[in-house]
C-alpha cells in the first residue's frame, strides 16, 4: 500500500483514497481562477494544523503578504503559522528585466533556498506555486527543464510531499509540459460555465500506484476552504436501521406493511402541480418533530414564513417546532447558487444541525440550475450522504402533466427506497387527489390508489370506493354514496313491507283458522244434538217396548228375539 499524506481538504482524501502520495510530487493543473494556489495553501495549513506536518510554500507569483491577505478570509492565519514555525513562505521574485544571463548556470540557488527552508522547520510538505514562472525569467529552456526534473527528483529524495501548481495549456495539461516530470499524481482542476452557471470540477488524471476515483467531481471554494464532492463514502456499504418513522398521516402509515418508512431510507414524493406534495412533506416534518426527532426542511419554493402560514391552514403547526429548535427551514431560490453549492450547503447544515430527517421541497427545482445528469449525480451523492448518516430523506418532485409516472425527470427513482405518487384523478368536471405507493423497499405496501382530501384538520385519506369503472372519487363518490344510501333505504323498506305482508297473511290465516274452528264447533254441536236426540229416541223406544212387553206377557226375555225379524 502506497503511503499517503492526507490533504485534509474536504472530500479530496475520499477520492484519492487517503490523500496525496506521501513523499512524492503531485501536480495540480488548471486554468486561471481554479483555486490551484488555494488548494496548495490549504494542503499546507491543514497539514500543519491537523497532521502536525510543517510545510514550505514557495510562491513565485505572490508575496508572502499578499498570500496571507488572500487566504485570511478563509480563516487561514499564515503569519501565525509562520510564527509557530509550522509554515515558511518564500517568495521567489522572478523578473526577466533584472536578470542578465552571462553564460552557463544552474538552479542551485532555488535548491539551496528550498533545502534551507525545509530543514529550518523540518517541513514534510512543500508547495511550489507556480514553478512555471521560471520560464518567464530564464531564457535557457534546456537548463530549466533539466533543473526542474532534478528538482522533483531531489524533492522525492528529501521525502517531502510536494504540490506543484501549473497553468493549464492548450492541448496539454500544463503550458510547459510539467506533467512530463511529475508522474506520480496529476490532479486537473477545471472551471467551466454552462448556461451562465459556473461549475468547478476536479479530476484525478493519474495516480501512480493507487486506485482513485476517476470521475469529475465538482468542488467549490467556500468560506471554509475547498470542498470536493462527494464528501461521502463512495460505496454502498452503509448500515441500515430497522426502525420505522411514521409518515405523519395514520391512514398513510397503514398503507405500508410496517406502518411507515424505515429510518434512514429515502422517500420520493412525486406529483403534478397542486397535488399537496408540500403538505404531505410538512406533515412528515411535523411528525418527525413530534416524535422527538430533528428535521431540516429545505424549501426551494416558499419562504419559511409563507410555508408556516400555509401549513397552519391545514392544521400543521410548524412554527412551534421551529421555536423549539427541532425544525429548521432553510429557504433559498435554486438559481441562487450552483448545484454543488447547494449540495455543500446541505452537507454543512446537516453536519451542523444533526437532523434525523431531511426534507427537500422540491428537488425538481434544482433542474433549473444544472442539466439532468448533473442533478442526478448531485442527488445520488446527497442520497448516499443521507443514507450513510442514517437520516431519513424525503424529496418532493414536480412532474409535468405530460410526462407520465415512471420517468421522473431526475431519474432518481431507482435511487430511492420508497416512492409515493400523488396525482390528479380527473373526473367529470372536477379534479381530485389520489395517492398511491409505487414502491417501498423492504416492506409490503398497499396497491390501492387512495383519494385524499385536505381539510382544516389536516390530510385525510378516504376509504376506497370501487365503482363499475374503477375507483370513484369526488362528486361521483358522493353520488355513489347517495345512491347507496337510497338503495339501502329502499331495501329496508322492502324488507319491512315483506314483514308486514307476512304478518297480514298470518293474521288472515289465523282468522280463517278461527272461522273454520267456529264452523266446526257449530257442526259438532249440531251433530252432538242429533246424536243425543237419537239416543234419547232409541232409549225411549226400548222403554216403550219393555213397557209393552210387560203389558202383554210377564216373560219378556223372548220378546226382543221374536221382534227382531220384524223390525
Amino acid at each position: 500500500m502506497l503511503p499517503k499524506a492526507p490533504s485534509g481538504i474536504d472530500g479530496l482524501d475520499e477520492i484519492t483514497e487517503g490523500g496525496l502520495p506521501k513523499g512524492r510530487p503531485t501536480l495540480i493543473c488548471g486554468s486561471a481562477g481554479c483555486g490551484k494556489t488555494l488548494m496548495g495553501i490549504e494542503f499546507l495549513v491543514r497539514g500543519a494544523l491537523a497532521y502536525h506536518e510543517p510545510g514550505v510554500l514557495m510562491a513565485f507569483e505572490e508575496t508572502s503578504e499578499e498570500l496571507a491577505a488572500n487566504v485570511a478570509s478563509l480563516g487561514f492565519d499564515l503569519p501565525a503559522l509562520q510564527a509557530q514555525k509550522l509554515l515558511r513562505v518564500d517568495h521567489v521574485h522572478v523578473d526577466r528585466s533584472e536578470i542578465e544571463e552571462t553564460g552557463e548556470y544552474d538552479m542551485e540557488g532555488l535548491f539551496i533556498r528550498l533545502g534551507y527552508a525545509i530543514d529550518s522547520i523540518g517541513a514534510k510538505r512543500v508547495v511550489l506555486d507556480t514553478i512555471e514562472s521560471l520560464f518567464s525569467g530564464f531564457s535557457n529552456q534546456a537548463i530549466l527543464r533539466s533543473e526542474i526534473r532534478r528538482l522533483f527528483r531531489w524533492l522525492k529524495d528529501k521525502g517531502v510531499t510536494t504540490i506543484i501548481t501549473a497553468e493549464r495549456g492548450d492541448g496539454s495539461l500544463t503550458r510547459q509540459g510539467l506533467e512530463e516530470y511529475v508522474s506520480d499524481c496529476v490532479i486537473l482542476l477545471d472551471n467551466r460555465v454552462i448556461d451562465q452557471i459556473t461549475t468547478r470540477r476536479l479530476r484525478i488524471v493519474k495516480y501512480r500506484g493507487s486506485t482513485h476515483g476517476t470521475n469529475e467531481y465538482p468542488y467549490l471554494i467556500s468560506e471554509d476552504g475547498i470542498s470536493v464532492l462527494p464528501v461521502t463514502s463512495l460505496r454502498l456499504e452503509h448500515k441500515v436501521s430497522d426502525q420505522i418513522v411514521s409518515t405523519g398521516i395514520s391512514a398513510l402509515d397503514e398503507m405500508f406493511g410496517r406502518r411507515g418508512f424505515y429510518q434512514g431510507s429515502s422517500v420520493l414524493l412525486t406529483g403534478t402541480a397542486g397535488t399537496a406534495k408540500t403538505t404531505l412533506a410538512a406533515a412528515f416534518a411535523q411528525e418527525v418533530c413530534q416524535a422527538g426527532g430533528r428535521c431540516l426542511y429545505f424549501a426551494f419554493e416558499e419562504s419559511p414564513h409563507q410555508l408556516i402560514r400555509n401549513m397552519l391552514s391545514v392544521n400543521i403547526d410548524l412554527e412551534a417546532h421551529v421555536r423549539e429548535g427541532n425544525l429548521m427551514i432553510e429557504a433559498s431560490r435554486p438559481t441562487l447558487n450552483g448545484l454543488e453549492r447547494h449540495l455543500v450547503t446541505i452537507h454543512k447544515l446537516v453536519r451542523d444541525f444533526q437532523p434525523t430527517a431531511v426534507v427537500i421541497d422540491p428537488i425538481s427545482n434544482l433542474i433549473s440550475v444544472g442539466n439532468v445528469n448533473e442533478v442526478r449525480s448531485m442527488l445520488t451523492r446527497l442520497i448516499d450522504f443521507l443514507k450513510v448518516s442514517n437520516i431519513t430523506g424525503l424529496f418532493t418532485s414536480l412532474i409535468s402533466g405530460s410526462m407520465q409516472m415512471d420517468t421522473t425527470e431526475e431519474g432518481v427513482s431507482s435511487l430511492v427506497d420508497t416512492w409515493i405518487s400523488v396525482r390528479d384523478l380527473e373526473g367529470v368536471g372536477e379534479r381530485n387527489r389520489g395517492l398511491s405507493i409505487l414502491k417501498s423497499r423492504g416492506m409490503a405496501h398497499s396497491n390501492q390508489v387512495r383519494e385524499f382530501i385536505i381539510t382544516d384538520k389536516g390530510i385525510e385519506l378516504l376509504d376506497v370506493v370501487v365503482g363499475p369503472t374503477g375507483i370513484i372519487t369526488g362528486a361521483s363518490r358522493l353520488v355513489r354514496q347517495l345512491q347507496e344510501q337510497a338503495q339501502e333505504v329502499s331495501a329496508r323498506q322492502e324488507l319491512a313491507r315483506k314483514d308486514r305482508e307476512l304478518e297480514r297473511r298470518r293474521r288472515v290465516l289465523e282468522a280463517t283458522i278461527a272461522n273454520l274452528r267456529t264452523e266446526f264447533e257449530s257442526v259438532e254441536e249440531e251433530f252432538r244434538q242429533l246424536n243425543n236426540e237419537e239416543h234419547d229416541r232409541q232409549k225411549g223406544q226400548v222403554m216403550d217396548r219393555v213397557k209393552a212387553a210387560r203389558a202383554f206377557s210377564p216373560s219378556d226375555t223372548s220378546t226382543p228375539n221374536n221382534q227382531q225379524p220384524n223390525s
Partner: protein
Amino acid sequence: MEVDENPPFGEKEYLLHLYIAGATPNSTKAVRNIKEICELYLEGRHELLIIDIYQQPELAQGEQLIGIPTLIKKRPGLIRRLVGDLSDRPRVLAALGLPATPPR
C-alpha cells in the same frame, strides 16, 4: 541613483557580490572570469565578495537567488543581477556599465 563619483568614505566605487555553489564547474569558471574582469577593468576601484551559499544558505532567500552563479552589482547605480558563469564578457561589461575595451 546616479553613478556616484565619490563613494562613501573608505569604500570602493564598485561593490560586487558573487554567489557561487561550492566548486562546481560553473562556479569556478565564474570566479575566474570575474577576477579577470576586475583586474582588467576595475583595478583598485572595486570590492569583490565571493560567497559560497552552501556555507551560508540563509542568504539565498534574502538575495532572491535562483540561478547560480549570480553576480550582484550593488554599486554603483541600480542593482543588477548577472546569472551565469560570466563567460559572455560583452554582456557582463554592458551590465556593469563598463567600456568594451580595457582602460589601458
